[in-house]
């Protein structure tokens, strides 16, 4: 199968089954582009995930564009973008034009209660993927704990946390990469 077409299909799947936004898509995206297709390595995937946080816009969209570009240049980026957004686009169109009342259906609401309970588990799987790729040392543990505390307890904006940690890396961790 044509690589670009296969890539478009993968991103359609990702767009159609990502509930709960951004981080919940990590397990699915990893299964598609890293484990099944081996288009990029796990390390590259996690780097892209990190960089995507620093850009404005939807995280799932930014990550897809990055991966698409990495796999196949600008054409790859365009296909990844449309693959990711088309499912939500058509589903929302269907809902606003026909099924505004579908939300009140008993079984539909039960299905979504189940999915709602699954989303945090998806995000937990993303945490595990991220920690697997990191060195287990006190420095990393400290940065993790400080980030959690500043977001969960002090309500610092996540982008600020990412930028500060990037600056920290630039000024203090440079010797580690040489």
């Amino acid at each position, binding site marked *: 199968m044509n690589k670009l077409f296969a890539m478009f299909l993968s991103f359609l799947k990702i767009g159609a089954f990502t509930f709960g936004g951004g981080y919940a898509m990590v397990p699915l995206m990893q299964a598609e582009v890293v484990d099944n297709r081996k288009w990029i390595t796990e390390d590259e995937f996690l780097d892209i995930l990190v960089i995507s946080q620093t850009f404005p816009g939807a995280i*799932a969209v930014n990550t897809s564009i990055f991966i698409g570009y990495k796999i196949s240049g600008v054409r790859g980026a365009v296909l990844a973008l449309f693959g990711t957004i088309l499912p939500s686009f058509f589903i929302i169109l269907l809902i606003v034009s026909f099924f505004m009342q579908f*939300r009140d259906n008993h079984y539909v609401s039960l299905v979504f209660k189940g999915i*709602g309970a699954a989303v945090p588990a998806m995000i937990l799987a993303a945490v595990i993927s991220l920690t697997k790729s990191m060195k287990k040392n006190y420095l990393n543990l400290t940065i993790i704990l400080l*980030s*959690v505390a500043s977001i969960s307890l002090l309500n610092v904006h996540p982008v600020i946390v990412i930028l500060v940690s990037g600056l920290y890396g630039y000024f203090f961790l440079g010797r580690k*990469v040489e």
Partner: protein
Amino acid sequence: MILLELFTAFLKIGAFGFGGGYAMLPLIEREIVTNNQWISYREFIDIIGISQMTPGPVAINSATFVGYKVAGIWGSVVATLGVVSFSFILVTIASHYIIKFKESRFSKSVLLGMKPALTGLVIAAFISLAKKSYLDVKSVIIGLIITAMLFSKRLHPILVIVAAGLLGIIFYSF
């Protein structure tokens, strides 16, 4: 012209909405409810509810929804393109340079600092979501079953989502 206004409003949302997903909601609300008054606050709450039930980024969902309400199919096309345009241009240019300078000391050291911080971000997202999602015993049990399925790595995540929907019917029917 309404299509152009829709495009610029969503371009702004895409360009200034840092942090993705629910972090973008206040900005979306200001643009479409307060400034342009395209939809009411109740409809805005409706969009959030629908976004939680439908796949895809909340920014895309709200762009499509509002665009349709304001100007039909073309409205939804224009608004959706608006919200992703800035990301597309910025990320494409950035990835060009990032791939080129991937091995540089600069990007390596910056990533070394950012990776654990991202882990912290995701843990924080887990905490805030788990607090809202796990309010009864049934949801905790579903969460545990799903976690086990994900970690066994035998099932594709799509099947896990389908299983979660079935578990919802099974557990909450009784």
